[in-house]
């Protein structure tokens, strides 16, 4: 079953256009959405969530049209925007107390378990958490309402290598039972090597490729130089695709 299916997503801004983006994510898989800064990753995620009104395109979540069933769909997803803090002066317990009222399938026991597992202290204020802990807190909220699809915008940006590795192995564990799926945007290619089943690449608002990791890497081997004997990596793919020459 498809957790998420996007067809023909288009959004025009005065200086940028997200054009005809289509891809889908199967249940139980992790998809990395890559592209350089400003390529349209966040716009894509925000359009999926109706935070940005797309000019065209269809979004289906678990087979349901997102726009028509926005509330039901949102019950089943968890969203983390890396770098955006909510209510930084509030205690985690206050934010949880409010958040849980909105979810019909809130599981308090699970929440307490995630707090312990992630070593989160409910009396702490958001501003007192490190970037990694903030992401973990948002994940704890998402997992406690049994989110089946996690949409994460650059969750590993700004994290140290240890915290990044910690978070990525957590993602792997989360999809292990095949019930949950993760779509996360990143520009850190090593994250994808460690933790992605599928890769969707957006360049200048256009979809360049969307496939499982092996097929994806294979499809870019034409960028390999004659002297190179090994497969080129995701980082090489991105750099060689995006490289520009400045005539200054």
């Amino acid at each position, binding site marked *: 079953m498809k957790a998420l299916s996007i067809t023909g997503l288009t959004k025009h801004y005065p200086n940028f256009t997200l054009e005809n983006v289509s891809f889908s994510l199967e249940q139980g898989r992790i998809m990395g959405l890559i592209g350089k800064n400003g390529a349209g990753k966040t716009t894509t995620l925000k359009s999926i969530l109706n*935070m940005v009104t797309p000019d065209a395109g269809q979004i289906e979540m678990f087979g349901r049209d997102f726009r028509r069933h926005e509330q039901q769909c949102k019950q089943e997803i968890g969203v983390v925007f890396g770098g955006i803090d909510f*209510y930084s002066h509030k205690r985690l317990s206050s934010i949880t107390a409010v958040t849980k009222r909105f979810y019909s399938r809130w599981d308090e026991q699970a929440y307490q378990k995630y707090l312990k597992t992630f070593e989160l202290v409910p009396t702490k204020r958001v501003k007192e958490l490190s970037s990694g802990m903030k992401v973990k807190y948002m994940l704890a909220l998402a997992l406690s309402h049994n989110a089946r699809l996690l949409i994460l915008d650059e969750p590993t940006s700004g994290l140290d290598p240890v915290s990044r590795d910690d978070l990525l192995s957590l993602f792997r564990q989360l999809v292990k039972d095949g019930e949950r799926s993760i779509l996360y945007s990143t520009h850190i290619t090593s994250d994808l090597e460690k933790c992605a089943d599928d890769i969707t690449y957006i360049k200048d608002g256009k979809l360049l490729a969307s496939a499982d990791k092996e097929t994806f890497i294979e499809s870019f081997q034409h960028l390999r130089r004659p002297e190179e004997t090994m497969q080129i990596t995701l980082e090489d793919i991105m750099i060689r695709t995006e490289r520009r020459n400045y005539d200054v």
Partner: protein
Amino acid sequence: MFDLLYKELRLAAHPNLFVFTLLGVLVIVPAYPYGMVFLFGCLGPFITFMYGRETNDIYYTALLPVKKRAIVKSKVALVVLSQLVQLSVSLPFAVLRLGLIPDGNPAGIEANVAYYGFGLMIYTVFNVIFLTHFFKSGYNVGWSFLYAIIPATLGVLIMEIVVHFPQFAWLDSVESAMLLRQLPILLTGLIVYILGIIATYRISAKRFDQVDL
């Protein structure tokens, strides 16, 4: 709706909103331009909206399992709640004042029936302009406040000045017969306030639907 209002009060509201709302008690001050109470009722939401922008309140709400319009609904509900609570807080003090300080308020209008009617109209002017302008962008609090507070302040000034003219002295009275004569002003205020809120919500929601967060 209750959950959204709970969210507003627990997470989004700045402590100042509660303080300004309680300033309804100012009608017990012996000599004071009571119209200021309504301006505090406008200032409270302004500070809360500024605070909301700092705390990414709209982003948080947009990710909850609610429709985008619910963001508008909960903000409008918070403003209405704070203003109605402010008036309710002031009421017992307005009654108490009659017994405690029967000499009247030399600074401006009495806290009488007309005063509350005018207050609802002043709130309406502020709400319609402030909220509909704010929801054009979802972040432009400062200009929205400026555009709204100027006509609201003019409304307060007119109310405070007009009662000093002899032909409008009945508006400044707390005698039973005069209070009865002021009743249409209160009813008009109530109708204007209700219609204003409905229009504010509809226009704001329509505008906010087009906003890209």
